Every structure is written in C-alpha cells, then in structure tokens.
C-alpha cells in the first residue's frame, strides 16, 4: 500500500506550493486513473510516490518504508514509466539480460507476451526503433518486471491508434491481485475502460477520489436532445450526437458507461 501523509511540496525557486497538506492512500489490486489540468501536479505526484522528489513536509510510505530512502528492495518493487524515458541504444535482448537481475519477479513469459501483443520482435535494436516503438518496448519491460507498484505518466502519448488498444490489452492481461497501477493521463479515452478508481487533482488537493463503481452508482452519462434537457442534468456539453449530459442517478436508472472527459469537465468547471 502507498500512503501519502500530509505532504507539502514546492519546486526550488518557486513560491507556489504544488501540494499543501496532501494525503492519499493507494490500495492493492486497483488501476488508478490520475487526472488533472496542466500544472496541477500529476507528474510531481508520481515523482513523489516513487521517491524521485522529497516533500518539504510530510512523508510518502510504500509498504511502510519512506520512499525518499530509495532502498533497493523498494525500487525493485516499483517501476515508473516516465513520459520521456531513457533506454540505451543496445539490443533489447541485451537490455533485458543486463537489467532483469535487478527485478526479482521479472518474467520472460510476460515480456514475450507483451512484445507479441505490441508486435515487436524480441531481438530488436533499441537504437533503430521509432519513439512509439521504443515506448512499447519500455512498457513491455515495465510489465515484465512484475513490480507491485507500476506508475505510468502519459503512457499512451506517442503510441499509434492500434497500439493504444494493445496497451489496454497488455495492462488488463497482466494485472495481478497484489499489483497497484497508477496511470496519469490526459488521454482519458485511451484508458477509461480499464480504470477502476479515479483520482482527480486540483491545485494542492484531491478534487475527486472515487471508484468507478461509486461514480456509476452516483451518475448517469447519456446523450439528450435539447427537448430532453431538464433539472436532473448536472452538466451538459453540446456534441454532434446531441447534448452529452451527466445526471444524478435515480433509483431504477440503468448503469451507464462512465464518460471520464465529461466527468472531468463537470468536476473542474463546477468547482
């Protein structure tokens, strides 16, 4: 479990706090979607969760160990897929051979399966790949490490259209009960089907922290004509199919698919 305890953080040379008295708890066996406007601190939060940044007050614990210590035991159980990442220009097979000893739960089967899903050969040279292909190789390696905590910052950026569904397949296939996945993204449509918990960040704090089931229990997402608009509508946006609306779910209403983009706009604009 990752426990963020009352942290405050600001970057050196900046006056404004990114987080002020921020607390959060991330449970196992969940895929968290981390959403927020630009500059609300999504990447900063991932850096704080992985120990790459140190809060000015408060602490972040991962399995009761303060993450700023960056102990090898902690790091071998935590993988951060950064938006821009570093992979040396060597063969993927050599990269795997060199780095897999650092991850005790590394699985060659998972790697082969992910590479196959991403349509990448196992003996590819990383220096000869496009940015998107390198990202797929990087995600495949991250999945194969089988770390208990997998943090991803904009993982679908740079991936082509088929790769985005391949990505969803890879995550869904290799999600295990003791694993916690946090995906920070602006591309909500790429990931909304697989998320089971939403964290929405606002300046300094959490704007929304709810499971997908809770969201589905509370709201309905549908399209309405202008004539169908009534007081039950909490938020609406005009689209080509009519008005996309969020309504308070009433007893007897059918469960609907969550429209994360609409929910995000509702939450951020209603505030």
């Amino acid at each position: 479990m990752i426990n963020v305890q009352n942290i405050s953080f600001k970057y050196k040379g900046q006056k404004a706090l990114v987080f002020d008295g921020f607390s959060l708890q991330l449970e196992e066996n969940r895929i968290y979607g981390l959403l927020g406007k630009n500059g609300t601190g999504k990447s900063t939060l991932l850096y704080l969760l992985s120990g790459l940044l140190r809060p000015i007050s408060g602490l972040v614990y991962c399995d009761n160990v303060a993450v700023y210590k960056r102990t090898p035991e902690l790091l071998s159980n935590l993988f951060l897929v950064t938006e821009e990442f570093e992979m040396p220009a060597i063969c993927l097979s050599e990269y795997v051979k060199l780095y897999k000893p650092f991850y005790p739960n590394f699985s060659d089967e998972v790697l082969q399966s992910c590479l196959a899903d991403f349509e990448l050969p196992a003996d590819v040279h990383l220096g000869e790949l496009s940015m998107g292909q390198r990202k797929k190789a990087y995600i495949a390696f991250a999945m194969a490490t089988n770390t208990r905590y997998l943090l991803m910052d904009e993982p679908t950026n740079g991936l082509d259209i088929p790769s985005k569904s391949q990505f969803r397949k890879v995550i869904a296939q290799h999600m295990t009960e003791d694993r916690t996945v946090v995906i920070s993204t602006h591309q909500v449509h790429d990931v909304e089907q697989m998320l089971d918990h939403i964290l929405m960040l606002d300046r300094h704090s959490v704007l929304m922290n709810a499971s997908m089931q809770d969201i589905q229990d509370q709201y309905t997402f549908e399209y309405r004509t202008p004539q169908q608009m009534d007081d039950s509508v909490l938020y609406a946006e005009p689209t080509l199919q009519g008005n996309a609306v969020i309504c308070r779910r009433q007893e007897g209403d059918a469960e609907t698919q969550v429209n994360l983009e609409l929910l995000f706009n509702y939450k951020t604009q209603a505030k």
Partner: protein
Amino acid sequence: MNTFNYNRFSQALKCHFLVERKTWIRLFGIYTLVMFMANLFFTRVADSGYSHWAEKYPSELFHHYSRIVEQTAVFGIIFFCFAMLFTASGMFSQMKDTRKRSAYLLWPVSNVEKYVVSVLISVVMMLFLTISAYILADTLRVLVDWLTGRIIVWGFTMPVMGRDGDHSWGVYQDWHGVWMVLVWAFYVHSLYIVGGTLFRRQQFLFTSGTIVVVGILLIMLLNQIDWNSIHFDFITGTWDEKTQTYTTIYHPSFYIINSAMMLLVACHYWASYKLFTRMQVINNKWLNV
C-alpha cells in the same frame, strides 16, 4: 535494509560499463588521437634538429632525442591530470537530464552501490583508459619513428623510470615526496569529485572557478598574517660539506599536514556521497541540492 550486496553491485558495475561502452571507445579514440598529435608535434615540428644531430653528433643522438621525447611524457602527464579532473567532475554525467536522472535514481541498486560504481568508473576506469591511450599514442609515435628511420626511444616509461631509466625524476627518490604528491593529487581530485556532485551543469568550469576564487581569497587572508612572528617548519634541508650531500629534513608539521589532507580527502568523498543521496529528479537550476 541491504545497503551493499556484492552480487547486485557487480551486476550494476557490469551493466553501467557495458551500456556506456560506446562512450569509452569514443573517449579512448579521442585521447589517443590528441596525445599522438602532441607527440608528433614535439618530435617533428618543435624539434627540427634530428637530422642535424644524426649527421653531426651520432653518439649524442640518443641523449638528445630522449630529451625531446621527455617533453611528450610531460605533456602526457599534464593531459592525464586534466583528464582525471575532468572525468571526476563529470562523475554523474549519466544523470545530466531528467530522463537519465530518473532512470539512474530509480535503478534498484542502493545509494552506496550507485555511488561506488560512479566513482570506480570515473576514477579507476578513466585512469586505465587514459594510461592505455597514452601508451598507444606513444607506440604509434615510435612506429612512425621506426618507419621514417629514426631511433627508438620509448616515452611512456619515462614518468616512472625517468629519462634514462635511472629514476632521474627527483620525486621518486624519497617516499616522502611520493606521499606528498599523491596526497595533493588526491586532494585536488576530491575537490573536483565534490564539485561534480554539487554543480548541476558545467561542473568542470564551475569547480575550477570556485577553486580559483577560494584560492585567491585564502591567499589574501594569509597575507594578513605576520609570518615572521610564527616559527613554522615544514621541510628544511642541511648541506654536509664533508660528504657533499644534501639531506632533507621532514618536520612533524609535514606529517600532520599530509595526514590532515588525507582526512580532508575522505571528508570530500563523504560530502559528495551525502549530496548524491539527497539528489532529486528536479533540483535547483545550478546546484544539485
């Protein structure tokens, strides 16, 4: 918490070495080329009198050419010192941008192991690489000499054996001298190790600049002291008329100061390590704090 695991450390060292191998090869090539060109400059351009000596004083030719080749050895030592300081200040060059920094900091290796790997690569590996490049450059110079009919005089043995293989470079004649030179060399090197960890960019320039500024300030401060009223002996010497020999006397202050310097070297390494453990993925613009 396991801070040092031999298997993990050796894997990390192997990993770091192999991933960066292209950089080592490139650096080795550059160093060899620079020293080879310098060798050619000293033996072919700066000294144009080889044929004159070969023609007029053939018996003196070896001695004359040895003196010329000695200049290449001196250049090699100066180059070696700069190379070592430069790589010491670039000890964490594998963390120069956010991507590399996050990859290195999240590597599941303890801070001690990461630090020792960086020190070994930037000190021992670069020592080996620079000396190898120096020997290769000298070998290439000897090859050119042989192809053009010149006598064979090796330069790479001179820093250890002296010009005529007689340890004629005075520093080797007394272990005190060797100790003092080594202590000062390690002291200056450790300053660049601290600078390389403290400064986020242009580490060599900023460290050199800081040393110069602090040095000037220290000299100005020391000039305020009336040294005539202080009796301070470091190294003195006596000349014996009977035996016609000069004896160097090393006073206790010599041992105290050298020992204190060694302690300072250890402190610098400790400070550098502590700075490293506190490094974050996004730091101050100029300093790694």
